[in-house]
């Protein structure tokens, strides 16, 4: 399907992408999957032509969460596990902005796992990119909630005794209105998913399989490549139960959009109740004060 574009188009695209690059040099390990995520993000933003100053990237703490520092947008590398609530506050206070939250698997599913379902219930209009490497990268190789059972890590010397979480399954159960899976190895495909997620009216989640070459070895690329399959084109993206089945496939990692179902965004619902409240005259200081007249 992909036709090579003419040379000047390519150059224009590359220049457009450069506009999103900050002057900080990434400190990721050579070969880290997160480089590709950054490249894909630049491509997606360039494609969407969103001015950098209209964008806010909000991350937690982790190798992956360093990403906002490398983009010439507004950016906050917040505290561990809290990108979602910070982004929720920002997006609901400033619906005019493009807000993208991002996190590692530990940040998103361990310490910050309690926030995920609520952003989904509220259907906050933001994209949420989780760079899943099945490990705690920044703190040097401990198990994460997606580390496979039995693995040896810095905190499971005799084999990990827990079952891994299924991020896509969680997102579906949480009622996320846009659920997709991408791989760092496929920058173009990932950028395409990102474009869709950023444009999505509501909460859009992409589980990004982004290898950690340092703690999981270069083989992690191979493991992902071997198991990855494009989600079959006949899959009905509005069928929740079917999506749940793909998410739990014991063999394959399905890449692409798993679920997409429009529902009212937080902003839409809040706008409605703001009108209702305004019609009742709520919010007026003098009227409120009058209520307390004995």
């Amino acid at each position, binding site marked *: 399907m992909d036709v090579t574009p003419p040379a000047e188009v390519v150059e224009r695209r590359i220049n457009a992408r450069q506009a999103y690059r*900050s002057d*900080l040099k990434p400190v990721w390990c050579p070969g880290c999957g997160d480089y590709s995520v950054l490249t894909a993000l630049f491509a997606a933003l360039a494609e969407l032509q969103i*001015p*950098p*100053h*209209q*964008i*806010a*990237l*909000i991350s937690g*703490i982790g190798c992956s969460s360093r990403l*906002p*520092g490398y*983009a*010439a*947008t*507004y*950016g*906050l*590398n*917040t*505290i561990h596990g*809290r990108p*979602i*609530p*910070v*982004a*929720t*506050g*920002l*997006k*609901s*206070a*400033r619906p*005019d*902005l493009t807000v993208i939250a991002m996190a590692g698997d530990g940040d998103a599913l361990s310490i910050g796992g*309690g*926030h995920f379902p*609520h952003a989904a219930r*509220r259907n906050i209009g933001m994209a949420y990119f989780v760079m899943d490497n099945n490990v705690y990268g920044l703190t040097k190789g401990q198990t994460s909630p997606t580390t496979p059972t039995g693995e040896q890590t810095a905190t499971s010397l005799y084999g990990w005794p827990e079952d891994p979480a299924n991020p896509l399954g969680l997102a579906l159960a949480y009622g996320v209105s846009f659920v997709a899976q991408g791989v760092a190895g496929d920058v173009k495909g990932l950028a395409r998913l990102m474009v869709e997620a950023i444009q999505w009216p509501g909460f859009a989640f992409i589980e990004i399989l982004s290898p950690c070459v340092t703690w999981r070895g270069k083989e992690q690329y191979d493991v992902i490549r071997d198991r990855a399959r494009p989600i079959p084109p006949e899959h009905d993206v509005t069928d929740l139960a079917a999506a749940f089945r793909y998410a739990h496939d014991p063999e394959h990692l399905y890449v692409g959009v798993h679920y997409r179902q429009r529902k009212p965004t937080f902003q839409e619902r*809040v706008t409605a*109740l*703001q009108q*209702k*409240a*305004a019609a*009742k*005259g*709520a*919010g*007026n*200081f003098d009227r*409120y*004060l009058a209520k*307390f*007249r*004995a």
Partner: protein
Amino acid sequence: MKQAVTIGQGASCPCVFLMGSGGDGVVTAGDLLARAVANAGLHCQMVKSFGPQIRGGESGVWLQISPQPIQGPAEQVQIAVVLSWRSFGPFARQLSLAPGALVFQDEQDAALAPPDLRDAGGQPVTPRSLPLQKLADELEAPRSRNILLVGFIAGLLQLPAALIPEVLQRKFGKRGAEVAATLIKAFHRGRELADAQARPAGLPALAPVEAEARLLLSGNDAASLGALHAGVEFFAGYPITPASEIMTAMAEHLPGRGGMMIQAEDEISAICMLLGASFGGKKALTSTSGPGLSLMVEALGFATQIELPCVIIDVQRGGPSTGMPTKTEQSDLQLAVYGAHGDAPRVVIAPENVRTCFDATVKAFYLAEKYQTPVIVLSDQQLGHREETLPATAFDEGHAFRTVIARRLPDVKPGEPYKRFALGDDPVSPMAIPGMEGGTYRTSGIIHDEAGNPTVSTDLHRRMSEKLQRKMTLILAEMPGYRLEGPAHADTLLLTWGSTAGAACDAAARRTAEGRPTAVLIVELLYPLPTEALREHVARYRHVAVAELTFSGQFLRWLRANGLALEQALAIHRGGGDPLTTSEILQRMREAWT
């Protein structure tokens, strides 16, 4: 023009206590009385107390009434009405009867009266029976017993008969004319009951006052008003006693002005949502109590570090841990001033009564926005929940702190580098907000350079720490942060803060009247503490006492930590629940300095 009022003879401040079990409606009765008192141009303070049950449990109301503004908490009760002796237990210890106090009961409940009821002088008190339920039944309005009670008390206090029917009409009119008429009838039956009683002996005479318009509201109401005045645009919070009323007020009022109240999934999210909104340029508020503040500690340090304004109203309750959720204490002080790993200064201010819950909230927004810092307002259950009468002008210009400012934005130009954390003479570096072209910046809780980028430079660590600290110096330079009250020739100083101020002022006045002129210094700005000013004041007095409601003396320890040695100071503090009373403070001073 309303009638002047006279109530008995003696002390200036009668205190009425009404108690019943769930459904008895004593809280409604108290509220009606308070409104009537307010409309009579008098002052009133109303404190409610509930049992552990959500519904059907016991409740009690204290109503203090005076022609003068009321400061301290109620002490002794002149008139008590107990509608249910069965559930009286939890109040037995809290209720102190004035010598000669009158205690009433419903005659149907008389058999359950405690055998040994005594007043503060140790004299036995025999409850007098009233046929309240019987009369209510006769009116074919069995649930109007509390309105009969209102009539009875109004009669005893000789409140003008016209005031209450008016209030009843306003409050119950929408339930139909018939209901209101029955209740007004019940009210009058109650008054007749009072006429039949011997006038209580020591009941104070209230000088006639020119009636004027009054507000009746709680500290949580005043704080909510303050937030609206200050231009709050965003609220995120998590329900918790005794702070939830602020959240409900924000839920009611923010959407109508284009703002938003989000019920967060917990307090960590609440404060993080604030930081997101504030990063986006909006004035953001949350309210909580001790357990919630504990959960906010990490994000508070982050807010200081990335210099984001936000306001946290902490309505303190009895601690530690779940503690006593419906009781009061001043024991979140240490957490408010020290709650962070690393050195993360923030602003902490405290209201001292219902009225200043407004001022403190407005000031909190002012300081937060001006100095790009989190600000904690330390209210407490006592202030948050008690209702007070205030002049209708209480929050007007000239009466309240009303300064409102907008965030200082930088003058950014696309293409020119913008330093979010510029280290200039002014420690407050203008903050760009998303959407501003040329203002993009990226930062983190990591020690950062002027642009916001992470650094491991210990030199920058020091300079950024100084930046944060210098803001505190500027705050001290622009406001005194305390208030001194009392005679100029006083030789004794009572240092205090927050809700203990009322009792402290009353105690000082009484001590002054005893010939020991005593002043009170009420600290409003707890962090940064106006240490130098306090030092100068303290040096002027022969005797110094520090009064607060904590078990461990947190305030005294905080003063000391800041370099006020206060080696000879009399420490007046105890474990929480009930507020410190005027007599307690007075007693301690009498014992210490005979």
